[in-house]
């Protein structure tokens, strides 16, 4: 996989700098390629992966149909055939496409939608949902990129926090990297093994000294950095939904903070507005 020649397009993309906007994100320095616009911020083959997946999901490339020839796709996007083949290869490993010599490339699957994880917004649901989530949990070593204590303006900081970092997978597909900071006094009270073997919200519920009474959460879209891309087995720069949560107890202490980074196609948030 790593022996593939690096694509000139990527090098060019990185070198050719557009003036920056205030957001710090690369400005829309589009390249007009065929009828479609590719952007410079994300490697070309990644954009092709995302685009092809979208073609399948939307039904523009129906199940069991043959997709356009790689040469035609390469011409359409103004990229080399190697780049197109890289993207197709990625989707083959995801079992969405299958290529057979002389037969072209066929759509053999659709991106799974039943894996969607709902993001609740009620404490009871968070505690309860944790029990119903069918996930394989892999404990990760300490984060390489987070400070020791939560960076927050929510509540009074506890003296210490215990950090738990987990990779969650369903049916072998990693979909969430979650980093939780728990007031260490709660961990000491209910026991570390409670948190290691059961959902974190349930562990917090067991505390007799601290009671969760208030909290906030935000959902935003970001892109996968190198670490998240590696852990979630997605391309660098692929969209990520970041869910941040803060929970405060009856004394105004920040007893819990978490950062969840989800594969964006695995998350949805439902609200009954009325």
């Amino acid at each position, binding site marked *: 996989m790593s022996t*593939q020649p690096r694509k000139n397009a990527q090098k060019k993309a990185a070198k050719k700098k557009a003036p920056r906007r205030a957001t710090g994100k690369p400005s829309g320095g*589009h390249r007009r390629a065929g009828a479609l616009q590719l952007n410079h911020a994300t490697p070309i083959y990644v954009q092709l992966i995302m685009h092809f997946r979208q073609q399948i999901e*939307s039904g523009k490339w129906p199940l069991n149909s043959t997709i356009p020839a790689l040469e035609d796709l390469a011409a359409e996007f103004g990229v080399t055939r190697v780049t197109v083949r890289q993207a197709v290869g990625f989707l083959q490993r995801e079992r969405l496409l299958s290529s057979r010599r002389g037969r072209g490339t066929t759509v053999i699957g659709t991106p799974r939608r039943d894996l969607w994880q709902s993001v609740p917004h009620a404490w009871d649901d968070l505690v309860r949902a944790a029990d119903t989530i069918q996930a394989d949990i892999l404990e990760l070593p300490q984060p390489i990129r987070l400070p020791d204590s939560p960076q927050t303006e929510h509540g009074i900081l506890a003296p210490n926090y215990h950090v738990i970092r987990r990779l969650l997978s369903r049916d072998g597909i990693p979909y969430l990297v979650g980093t939780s900071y728990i007031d260490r006094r709660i961990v000491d009270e209910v026991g570390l093994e409670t948190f290691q073997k059961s959902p974190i919200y349930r562990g917090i519920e067991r505390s007799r000294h601290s009671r969760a009474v208030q909290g906030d959460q935000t959902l935003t879209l970001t*892109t996968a950095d190198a670490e998240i891309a590696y852990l979630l087995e997605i*391309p660098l720069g692929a969209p990520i939904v970041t869910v941040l949560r803060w929970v405060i107890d009856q004394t105004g202490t920040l007893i819990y903070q978490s950062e969840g980074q989800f594969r*964006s196609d695995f998350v*949805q948030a439902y609200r*009954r507005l009325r």
Partner: protein
Amino acid sequence: MTDFTPLELDLTHNRAPIYVQLSTLFRRFIVTGHWPVDKQVPTHETLAMQFDVNPATIRKAIAMLEDEGLVKRYRRHGTFVTAKPASADWFRIGTTWEEALRAFDALAVELIEESDVDAVPEPFHGTGMAAAGYRYQRRLYRRAGSAIMIEDSYLDQALRRKISDAKLAGSAPLALLGAERTAKVERADETVRFGIADTEISTILAIPLNASVAIVHHSVFGEKSKLLFESCAYLRGDIALVSEPIKFGGKP
């Protein structure tokens, strides 16, 4: 500051160049405050050892951050963090009925397409009882001149006739449903999903193909679960924000 846990990160896993991958990590260090503003970052040699790469690779990664205006390199003094990336000018997706109605207040509305249809194709939260017919409309919403959201909506024709053409053309239909008291709303559902812009959406919103988008579905039901309104809006992902309190004390 330099005591990272040894990195168990295989940078050859991704096909992106190593320096690009490293720059995404370093950017993250700045965002999280691991590398504080105004402080010196570890030397290129230290970082090269930590990540087991050539110092030239570190230099290229740092140069990407310098182009973004996040760090500055001084000859003989090293590299310093100059700023955190500016946070986006968020558009908040409403999470209550009142917020959802007000969400469009500051936006300019342009009706770009409309037609009469018999039924709502694929109502997201279920059909309920279908109305006799719907008015399909596509609206483009702008903020400070820039397109930020495109919305496809279906409004019960019986309701549509109660609202003047001018009002319907210049307003967000959801806001009208709430404000006009034209309908008895029994239930309103919202689902936020996330995806990427296809050719059509990227062209309309003037964002790159594959840029992230938030997809907001609204369904409004009246008496006897009649589907009064259905919409699907594509919002630029870089400004989409859901921010809400966590509810405590049982179900509302």
